[in-house]
């Protein structure tokens, strides 16, 4: 958890692990959360949920922002932009995984999803017209 939130610069990874190994470990963590959510201890799930809302709602202190900013700078200087973009993408995927699990555990979500699957469907055809229709029906 700490490693997810704080970029792994100036840590034990710096000298001992290759950046791709590090990125792979985060990918594995994302897959692990996705595949094992139901069997995770409640406390760990709550911490992951808290981590998600902390990031999404930007409930981050000045100290955390400063620390992250410095870490990003060192990370880019040490490894370059491409690994940084990959890192951001993995974090985004992990946040999406956690949010999907939260939504799937909500009874109302399951009810609404079932309802949405039981509808009659029609071809949209012209997307511009569909957008204009939405515009006029929300005025």
């Amino acid at each position, binding site marked *: 958890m700490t490693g997810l939130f704080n970029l792994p610069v100036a840590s034990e990874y710096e000298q001992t692990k290759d950046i791709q190994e590090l990125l792979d470990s985060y990918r594995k963590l994302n897959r692990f959360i996705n595949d094992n959510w139901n069997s995770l201890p409640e406390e760990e799930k*709550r911490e992951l949920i808290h981590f998600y809302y902390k990031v999404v709602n930007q409930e981050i202190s000045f100290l955390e922002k400063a620390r992250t900013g410095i870490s990003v700078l060192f990370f880019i200087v040490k490894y370059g932009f491409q690994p940084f973009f990959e890192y951001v993408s993995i974090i985004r995927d992990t946040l999406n995984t956690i949010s999907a699990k939260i939504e799937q555990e909500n009874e109302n979500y399951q009810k609404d999803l079932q309802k*949405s*699957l039981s509808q009659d469907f029609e*071809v949209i055809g012209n997307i511009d017209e569909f957008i204009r229709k939405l515009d006029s029906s929300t005025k």
Partner: protein
Amino acid sequence: MNSSENWTVLQSKYFERTVVNLIKNSYRKNPKGKKKFLELLKSILMELTNNPYCKNSYPEPSPKNMLKEDEELRKYYFLLPDLKGAVAQGRIIYKINKKEKSVYLLMAYTHKQYEKRPPDDLIRKADNQF
């Protein structure tokens, strides 16, 4: 613009209602934000027309016995313009039928509608670990 070029996109009254509710709840007093959202929605629909397996979409588990053999569910993740937090975390759920090469739009919502926050004491406890 015709959506039949690659994948055929279909929608239901239910999907349309979820989009209308999303717009009304998110942009009641922000017409510029609404305009940006509609432009974004248009680009998402065009993207799904070209490739429903695009990079912002992920597999989504389906309720039991609700899909046919050639069907699967996916969820598209996007950020609502001019908003922050859980209300800005937009989702569109859709069903793909590979045999028909069709995309069925099921519902649109924000994470806020199905959020779950831990109790405050657990938030404080977790904060101490960050």
